[in-house]
């Protein structure tokens, strides 16, 4: 009698054959997309486990806070010029207090930029031949690390919405995993089609579903 289904197949015994080129790329400080990167390590990484994809949100997504930072940096000199031009004075502030106020203001502005940079810098997705890691840092007080085995990936798709995502070639890559576990999403990642393609190729052959390109 032919065997139609056998649940005893050991998934780990099936060799994983990544189709990604083995040329390693040293990662830069502002890299948002890197295949086979070197210079990265993550917690619980196995000695022979190489990283296939390293992803961050596209650098263009930082334009908003960079713009506001520049505005905040330029605001005090502009306000000072306007007040001195109009000749208005509300109350006397000693030079020492003015100095301290100015330093504190710029400290806040630089800290705002620093925290925004950190949230971008550590908001990463990692793909290895064995697993997927999704480190979400929404703000400095909240971060979430999700991890799943590559054999649990059911479906990989990608989507690009709007002018900017199409123009700069970035988008979301939602990755559906086994029903009980949480789904993954690499948000606003550069080259979403390649990310979906590489992740799909890494899956063991017996996995259900296929990549659907939106």
């Amino acid at each position: 009698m032919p065997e139609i289904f056998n649940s005893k197949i050991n998934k780990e015994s099936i060799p994983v054959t990544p189709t990604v080129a083995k040329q390693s790329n040293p990662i830069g400080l502002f890299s948002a997309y890197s295949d086979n990167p070197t210079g990265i390590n993550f917690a619980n990484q196995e000695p022979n486990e190489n990283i296939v994809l390293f992803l961050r949100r596209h650098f263009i997504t930082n334009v908003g806070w960079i713009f506001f930072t520049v505005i905040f940096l330029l605001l005090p000199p502009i306000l000072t010029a306007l007040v001195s031009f109009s000749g208005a004075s509300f109350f006397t502030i000693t030079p020492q207090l003015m100095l301290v106020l100015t330093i504190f203001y710029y400290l806040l502005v630089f800290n705002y930029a620093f925290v925004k940079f950190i949230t971008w810098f550590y908001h990463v997705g990692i793909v290895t031949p064995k697993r997927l890691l999704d480190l979400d840092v929404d703000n400095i007080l909240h971060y979430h690390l999700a991890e799943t085995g590559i054999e649990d990936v059911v479906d990989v798709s990608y989507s690009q919405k709007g002018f900017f995502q199409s123009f700069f070639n970035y988008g979301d890559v939602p990755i559906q995993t086994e029903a009980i576990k949480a789904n993954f999403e690499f948000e606003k990642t550069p080259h979403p089609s390649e990310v979906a393609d590489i992740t799909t190729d890494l899956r063991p052959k017996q996995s259900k579903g296929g990549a659907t390109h939106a």
Partner: protein
Amino acid sequence: MPDALSIFNFIQDRGIILLIKFLLLLLLFVYVIFTFIVISRVRTLNRTLSLSAAHASSLIEIIAFIFLILSVFLFILILVIV
């Protein structure tokens, strides 16, 4: 009469400066706590993900520490000078 007005102005200005000083100290206190949180979070994230490129992980940790030093320095400066 002008003397009384100048004394009133002096007290008013002095009061505003003291109020600003108190508010600044309060804000800086909150800010120092916040920088502590940033440092601990950066350390946690560096343990999760380590980037040796351009010493990125250690560089970010150093910058976070500099923010803490600056804020403490500013706190002392307000207490002493202003």
